[in-house]
């Protein structure tokens, strides 16, 4: 399955738009990781346990989103966005969403491309810190 965070896929034509698909997960770090991060915070640098937590949550959220897209019969998800929230101290939610589409490899010479300025919806809304 092709997943991109742009509105179209180079070399492909979007033949059908199936709608919004999403996946979320709330994961917690175990106590050991919290303690290790506390120690690591004395000397500074990367907190690997928390990076891993983000990686795992992100994978799981995307997998769920892709499973939903597959159920709809899509072969690609475009315009994927992420959003995170700290539900409670020690647990993080990661939410991934995008638009499920059916894309077809474009074999023609010139690819018709919509004007990118008109394709961008006003105000992205997400993405800012």
């Amino acid at each position, binding site marked *: 399955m092709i*997943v991109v965070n742009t509105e179209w896929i*180079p070399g492909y034509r979007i033949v059908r738009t199936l709608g919004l698909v999403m996946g979320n997960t709330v994961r917690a770090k175990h106590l050991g990781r919290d303690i290790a991060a506390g120690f690591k915070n*004395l000397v500074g*640098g990367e907190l690997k346990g*928390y990076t891993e937590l983000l*990686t795992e949550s992100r994978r799981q959220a995307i997998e769920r989103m892709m499973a939903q897209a597959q159920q709809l019969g899509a072969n690609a998800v475009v315009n994927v966005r*992420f959003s*995170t929230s700290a539900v409670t101290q020690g*647990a993080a939610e990661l939410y991934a969403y995008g638009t499920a589409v059916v894309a077809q490899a474009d074999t023609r010479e010139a690819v018709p491309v919509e004007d990118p300025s008109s394709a961008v919806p006003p105000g992205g809304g997400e993405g800012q810190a």
Partner: protein
Amino acid sequence: MTLDLAMSLIASVGVPAALLLLGWLAGRWTEGSHLRRLAAAEAELAGLFLSDVKSFPPSPEATGGATLVIAEVVMGVDYLKHFTARIRKIFGGEVRSYSSMMARARREAVVRLLAQVHAQGYDAVCNVRLEMADIGGSVGPRSMPLAAILASGTAYRRRPQP
């Protein structure tokens, strides 16, 4: 009596002082080596094209598919920087110890993103988004300063494949 006094002095002054010293020495060392690693990685990946527009520059007719790339990094500061930041909050102004933490975390995230782009055989990435991830550790009364960065983008081929 004197022993009690000495013990409490060590506990109240000695331990924080030791942590500050540890933070200063270890923090300087980790920051220095991280900045060197970043500079080396950035030089190595300089050939890749990075942008935050949605239209696959230079030409929207790029071919050869595309894929989502994501990188995440969580960084903290050392004890000394935490301490100086608290002092800074009394007087106000730029909290340099935290600006440098955020800058390093973002650079690291971009380097990881580019490394993935390169590893998957693409030569450009567009629509790069860098957002601050909200993870539990960064809230609450006993909060640790954390820079949790989630970077995403779409990798594609700028040059047509031979």
